[in-house]
């Protein structure tokens, strides 16, 4: 067994950066903070790549397929003999793939931020938080224990909170950070209860043992499938709740409302957290527990499938109407994640044909990380230059920002699924698996891919073309070099990532799969994408009144999409009106007036009685004698009553 213990360093280096920068960054390092953080992540990335190389090509393969390697395992908190939270580092194809993605994108974002965030007063703090996030995310993907993953799950949530709220003096940023945390917290509740259910029946928290036990009909499976709640077996409940946790973090409908708001954070952060890495954690989580999902009844996977499909479609529709560049990208992220989930949901059996969607999903996750991070970083350059997020403030930027323009175009082509860019391959796989599984969903996916191309190019044309030149002052250069390098590297990734033979490396059971790419099959999606692009060009290439007329023609549909299908309003109704007014306020009132009132009532009653009997002490000595005599009489009566 090769020694993989050094893997632990991959997450620990960013953690060290966090601790050092968090404690001393503000006072001692200041401008050096970015360098320190980047250096740590650079080492992490190097180690990740090395580990990936070792794992995939040198010694990860045992026999035919890739096996899970537990590099490290130490008990962190043990509840009972079987149940303990272990801090472990687990290598298998998906985790290795993920550490590469996470550390790589993180490195890009670090480098980019050195230019983007220059001059900020909380420069050190920013890099500290980035380090924390990178640590948590790497820890998450390397987890071999379901509770360990929950721990890192919460930590990424927290670092996301801190980073969204980085511009803490903007009320909108604070509100967005809060919203992100609370919505994902709500979803995590499902995750937590899911863990409780699964671990209780499997009597373990370890992923490998858990999967083994829950897919083995002779062992604990009997208990968990026979026990049911509301007619659904507890296994399904557990898996469903875990999926809810994943859906929250991955911004699936209807738990997606936090993601667009999260764009209040610094743009590189959006690139890292809300595009490439954290938001795919949900996909990753479902993938982790995949064998169990397949094994349980099909209902949960159907939920996954439709949740993915609905999210993909809905987000794409909304993205067509948004005017804030980052929000468009945010909805596009949501839509793409919907794709990934959809792909996971298409799996219908444990065989090779049935698990095509798994590989497709992971593949899309991988390629998406590159082009979406690239899109966000480009957006970062644009915003850095224009000082606005609104599309109407842009236009004609292609001359001013030529490099950005090129990169952005590559990314748009990639996301639209135009061959030979990376998005084409992964999306192709997804559509293929959808075709095999469910024709209706395939239809949605296909339509969405057309929409994707449309809104991406809408964005592209609006920003870079539309006018001849940008209206603002154009004296400064494009961007510092630290911002340009990541663009170039990521663009290269967006172009070439599709050629990685994914199905040989990352598959459901570790065994390599043969891809059955049929050339004919690609026609429909590419055609859809091209149609989308042409519509976008027709509407947005030049300044015109066409978009407005189209919007007017669509009427209600446009308005609904523009208002994000009123989902935010529903949420705010539920929270403000129902939770706050119908539960919180009465609870607080009851506490003050009824519960506490009871306590005060005791005091008042005592005082009342006290005042009521004061007349006994009349001050007249004859009354005293009377009471005295009455006392004797009373005692006599009592004696008679008691003893006769």
């Amino acid at each position, binding site marked *: 067994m090769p020694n993989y213990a050094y893997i632990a360093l991959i997450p620990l280096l960013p953690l060290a950066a966090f601790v050092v920068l968090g404690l001393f960054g*503000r006072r001692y390092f200041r401008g050096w903070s970015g360098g320190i953080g980047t250096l740590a992540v650079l080492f992490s990335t190097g180690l990740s790549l090395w580990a990936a190389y070792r794992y995939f090509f040198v010694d990860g393969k045992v026999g035919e397929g890739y096996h899970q390697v537990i590099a490290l395992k130490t*008990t*962190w*908190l*043990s*509840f*009972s003999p079987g*149940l303990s*939270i272990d801090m472990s580092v687990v290598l298998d194809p998906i985790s290795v793939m993920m550490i590469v993605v996470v550390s790589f994108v993180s490195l890009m974002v670090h480098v980019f931020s050195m230019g983007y965030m220059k001059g900020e007063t909380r420069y050190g703090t920013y890099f500290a938080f980035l380090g924390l996030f990178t640590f948590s995310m790497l820890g998450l993907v390397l987890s071999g224990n379901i*509770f360990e993953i*929950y*721990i*890192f799950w*919460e*930590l990424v949530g*927290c670092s996301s*909170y801190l980073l969204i*709220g980085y511009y*803490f*003096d*903007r*009320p909108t*940023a*604070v*509100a967005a*950070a*809060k919203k992100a*945390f*609370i919505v994902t*917290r*709500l979803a995590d*509740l499902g995750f*937590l*209860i899911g863990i*409780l259910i699964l*671990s*209780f029946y499997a009597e373990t928290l370890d992923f490998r043992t858990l999967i083994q036990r829950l897919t083995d009909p002779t062992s604990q499976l009997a208990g968990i499938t026979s026990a049911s709640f509301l007619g659904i077996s507890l296994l399904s409940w557990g898996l469903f709740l875990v999926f809810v946790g994943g859906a929250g973090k991955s911004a699936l409908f209807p738990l997606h409302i936090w993601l667009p708001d999260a764009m209040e954070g610094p743009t590189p952060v959006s690139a890292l957290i809300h595009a490439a890495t954290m938001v795919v954690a949900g996909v990753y989580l479902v993938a982790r527990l995949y064998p169990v999902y397949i094994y349980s009844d099909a209902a949960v996977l159907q939920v996954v499938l439709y949740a993915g499909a609905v999210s993909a479609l809905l987000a794409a529709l909304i993205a067509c109407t948004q005017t804030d560049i980052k929000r468009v990208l945010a909805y596009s992220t949501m839509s793409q994640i919907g794709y990934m989930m959809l792909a996971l949901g298409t799996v219908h059996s444990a065989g090779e044909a049935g698990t095509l969607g798994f590989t497709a999903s992971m593949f899309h996750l991988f390629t998406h990380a590159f082009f979406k991070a690239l899109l966000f970083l480009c957006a970062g350059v644009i915003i850095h230059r224009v000082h606005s997020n609104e599309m109407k403030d842009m236009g004609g930027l292609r001359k001013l920002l030529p490099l950005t323009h090129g990169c952005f175009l590559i990314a748009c082509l990639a996301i639209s699924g135009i061959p030979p860019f990376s998005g084409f391959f992964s999306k192709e796989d997804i559509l293929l698996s959808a075709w095999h599984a469910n024709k209706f969903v395939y239809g949605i996916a296909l339509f969405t891919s057309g929409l994707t191309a449309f809104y991406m190019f809408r964005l592209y044309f609006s920003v870079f073309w539309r006018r001849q030149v940008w209206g603002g002052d154009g004296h400064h250069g494009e961007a510092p070099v630290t911002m340009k390098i990541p663009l170039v590297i990521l663009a290269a990734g967006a172009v070439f990532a599709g050629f990685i033979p994914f199905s040989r490396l990352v598959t459901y059971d570790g065994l390599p799969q043969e891809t059955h790419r049929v050339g004919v099959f690609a026609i429909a999606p590419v055609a859809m994408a091209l149609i989308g692009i042409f519509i976008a060009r027709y509407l947005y290439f030049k300044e015109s009144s066409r978009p407005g007329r189209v919007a007017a023609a669509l009427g209600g549909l446009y308005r609904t999409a523009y208002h994000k299908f009123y989902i935010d309003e529903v949420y705010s109704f539920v929270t403000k009106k129902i*939770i*706050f007014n119908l*539960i*919180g*306020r009465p*609870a*607080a009132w009851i*506490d003050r007036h009824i*519960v*506490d009132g*009871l*306590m005060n009532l005791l*005091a008042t009653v005592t005082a009342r009685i006290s005042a009521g009997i004061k007349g006994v002490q009349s001050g007249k000595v004859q009354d005293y004698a009377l009471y005295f005599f009455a006392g004797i009489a009373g005692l006599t009566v009592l004696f008679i009553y008691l003893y006769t």
Partner: protein
Amino acid sequence: MNLSLLVLVPLITAVAVLFCKGLNGIRWVSLAGATVQLLLSFGLLALYWRERAAGDSAAFLYEYRHAWFPSWNIWYHVGVDGVSIAMILLTALVMEAAILVSWAIKPMSREFFILLHFLSAGAYGFFLSLDLFTLFFFLEVSVIPKFLLIGVWGSGRKEYSAMKLALMLMGGSALVFVGLMGLYYNTGGAGGTHSFDLMEIAQMHIPVEVQRQFFPFLFVGFGIFTALFPFHTWVPDGHSSAPTAASMFLAGISMKLGGYGCLRVVVFLMPEAAREYSPVIVLLATIAIVYGAFATMMQKDLKYINAYSSVSHCGFIILGIGMLTRTAISGAVMQMISHGLMTALFFAAIGMIYDRTHTRMVQQLGGLLKIMPFISTVFVVAGLCSLGLPGLSGFVAEITVFMGSWERAGEMYRLATILACASIVITAVYILRATGQAIMGPVKDPHYNGLGDATWNEKLAGILLGAGIIAIGVAPFWLQALIK
């Protein structure tokens, strides 16, 4: 090690403070006393580990017995096990921090520090006691100093709050008293002597019907100390009126007396009754957790927020105890420690903010992160701990309680666990609301711009408590091994 030292050191310090000259003398002597306590408790921890490592498997170590009232068979009997050591460490930490935070207390600083030392002596004694009389003695010792601390140095409706606190706590101890009497007179069996000794009673079997009769007294009695619904109403008023150090001690230590008592006395001595009453306890705990959390959501005063959240968090302690599984109970102990540190830190931060801005209303605060980054960071750390962020102690404790509670089969227990889990979402809501409004956002009042950040003593206090929180959160295994 002579455990009585832990009680004596604060008392000696109090006397020394009494004869100290000058404000600085008072402060430094107090601090020195608290530091000695802290060192003693760490020393105790080290000795304890060594003893255990050497294979000493006695239930309690360093026992000391001294006949106090032989005719009643009352002993001054002290000893420690892991749980009490954990509580003692907590007390020492909070005490040290409380003294640091009260550095600038005025007026009557001398009296203030003396009372604080009295409080801590009572808390140490309580955690050390192995005799129910001794335990009860120390339980009541801690009430009056709180009354005075709140009433004299407090703010707002301080007299009302102080009186309410004192009366409700004494009400609780009156119930405890009745329960103790019931236990005492049912020990010994035919012809034997009655006993207050914890270990002796544990070995005798208290008849089930007796347990059934006296369990409610003891449980509710101790429960009042730890904010058992519906007897928690002293908590919001008391905490919010108290001066910073008193709030810290009150929420950090005093509320734990009840939990510790429930555990050490009630459940330990009356296991059968505990099992029978378990549904009721779980019900009350769940109500406290959920309802406390909802009530917190509506509060506008930072201290009220923390006080109500204490009600909710202490619900976890009771829930853990009520579930009666090993894991749940060890979770309850962890929650005591965790909540002790966390809430002390929280109150410390709130106190520091209040000292500077003279308001605790979240709407009036804002943007403090810019003005006082250290204090704000402390606040945020405490808040994150409160909402159960991994890496901080709150998570460890809550998760252990959840896991333990889930082990208890039965629809009602499951539902209670789920509701308890759900409360962490509400916790997130109110913590983030408070943080968002008070700490983040724009600076609302231009006067705040000139305010300074924490002074060295405040920083030290924050770091001490924060270190404790992180030490448990990052490496919970040592605590777990300790309290096992």
